[in-house]
């Protein structure tokens, strides 16, 4: 019970700290919303092969981008900074279990991520009249759940590898933006070599966008099993690296 209370308290504190740091709040909320409005207004009306309006793909793509920005970038940078500032060492002097601290961060990140996802969904509906299809709600829920787990795990993993507080935000941003581009997040019609798109398909960004897309567009394939499997595999990989690094650092 006490550990639960401490975890909740820690999560609340992280939320407060998140909203007090303009750089995080801006990157996490303003950037995806801006991109959605901009790209939606510019390209949303055109048609993709198969007579799908591009906005139907853009909304879930940018939604995926929002999830990644909130879960991966946020957790990656926000866990690395206190470690390098010596805050983690200070916390280790207190009776707060390391788990409560870590889970508090994760809970806060999940809350932020769900908030941005809801925001994006709302803007997609209000600004562009785009809503997930009823039969796609399961994919939406599954994609969000697995996506958050996967990118939070990868965020923790990358935070454990970052060498200084100053490099935390640049490294986390630089490590996913190029992949987001080749994954067609910002432009689904992007023309890239076949080998590159094959590589992108094995990475979790494309996979998350794929699952969310299937929630919005009429089902082109029966079940996004491959994409969900890719997300799950990356979640396991991220969590393994994070656990291995945190164990080593606290030993």
């Amino acid at each position, binding site marked *: 019970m006490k550990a639960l209370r*401490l975890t909740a*308290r820690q999560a609340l*504190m992280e939320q*407060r*700290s998140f909203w*007090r*740091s303009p750089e995080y709040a801006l990157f996490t909320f303003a950037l995806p919303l801006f991109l959605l409005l901009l790209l939606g207004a510019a390209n949303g009306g055109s048609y993709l092969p198969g007579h799908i309006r591009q906005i139907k793909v853009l909304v879930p793509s940018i939604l995926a981008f929002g999830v990644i920005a909130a879960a991966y970038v946020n957790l990656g940078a926000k866990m690395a*900074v*206190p470690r*390098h*500032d*010596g*805050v983690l*060492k*200070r916390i*280790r*002097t*207190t*009776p*707060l*279990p390391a788990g409560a601290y870590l889970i508090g961060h994760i809970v806060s990140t999940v809350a932020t991520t769900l908030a941005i996802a809801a925001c994006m969904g709302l803007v997609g509906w209000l600004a562009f009249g785009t809503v997930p299809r009823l039969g796609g709600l399961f994919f939406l829920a599954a994609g969000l759940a697995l996506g958050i787990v996967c990118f939070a795990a990868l965020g923790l993993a990358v935070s454990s590898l970052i060498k200084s507080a100053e490099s935390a935000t640049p490294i986390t941003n630089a490590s996913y933006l190029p992949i987001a581009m080749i994954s067609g997040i910002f432009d689904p019609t992007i023309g890239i070599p076949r080998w590159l798109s094959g590589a992108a398909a094995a990475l979790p960004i494309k996979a998350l966008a794929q699952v969310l897309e299937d929630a919005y567009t009429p089902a082109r394939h029966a079940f996004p099993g491959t994409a969900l499997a890719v997300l799950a595999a990356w979640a396991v990989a991220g969590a393994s690296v994070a656990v291995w690094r945190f164990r080593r650092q606290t030993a």
Partner: protein
Amino acid sequence: MASPATGLAVEVRDLRKDYGERPVLRGVDFEVRRGEVFCLLGPNGAGKTTTVEILEGFRTRTGGSATVLGLDPAAQPAELRERIGIVLQECGFPRQARVGELIGIWRDYYPRPRPLGDLLEVTGLTEDRNTPVRKLSGGQRRRLDFALALAGDPDLVFLDEPTTGFDPEARRRLWAAVENLRGLGKTIVLTTHYLDEAERLADRVAILLDGRIKIAGSTREVARLAALPAQISFTAPAALRAKEVPPPDGVDLAVSGPVARCQTRNTAATLRALLAWADRHRLGDLDELTVTTPSLEDAYLHHTDRSDGEPPA
């Protein structure tokens, strides 16, 4: 209360620590009594930080035993964390927090915290309660370090080189804070490079050298055990300077300028001889007659001197 029979806050027996093949602690023994200020001294690399980190539960020992408040720190008991406070060197704060809020969060980590207002007052941060942590000065940050370490109202406080980089004013304020803690009945384990700090604050000191305790005891005992001579000085009478009276027998008196000095290992006998000599030659009372006993610093330099001979007098 743990180990009430012995009244010991910390008990260290034959403590050993190897980093790989390299032994850092080679069998350290000391104890800290409840309610005292205990100071661990020693040159860099002697093993002070390693010893303290083992007691704090941050490092595991290779051998021997260590008991802190009756608990084994290696077992990482939550109870130990609840009852000790640690002031680390160079440790950051969460960037977005405010002073009062951060102390409030820290209080929540402990089962029996000290009141917030009390913590702010003891550390002189009452007016900075709503100040963002990143706007604090160096001295204020150090005081916040203290406030956080005291948040759980600990029985035992570890201070690792608390005044490194302080100006004299800030040092005195911190010393007052340590004395205040002692007044509250807290046990304090201190490491420091500054011997005047140890002499001023510590009830007992231990000098760690090459992974062993070279000597331990009250500051006076440690100074006395160095068996260094005391120094006696007085204003040299005009007759002595003019060589109208002979110097006293059996006393190695040196006159330089207006001051006469001698060193002695038997202060009382030397004083008697000097006064008798002054009486005999009608030199009156010896002006500014002063006995300087060896300081902790003299003793420290003597104990840590690696050359075998006596340090130059």
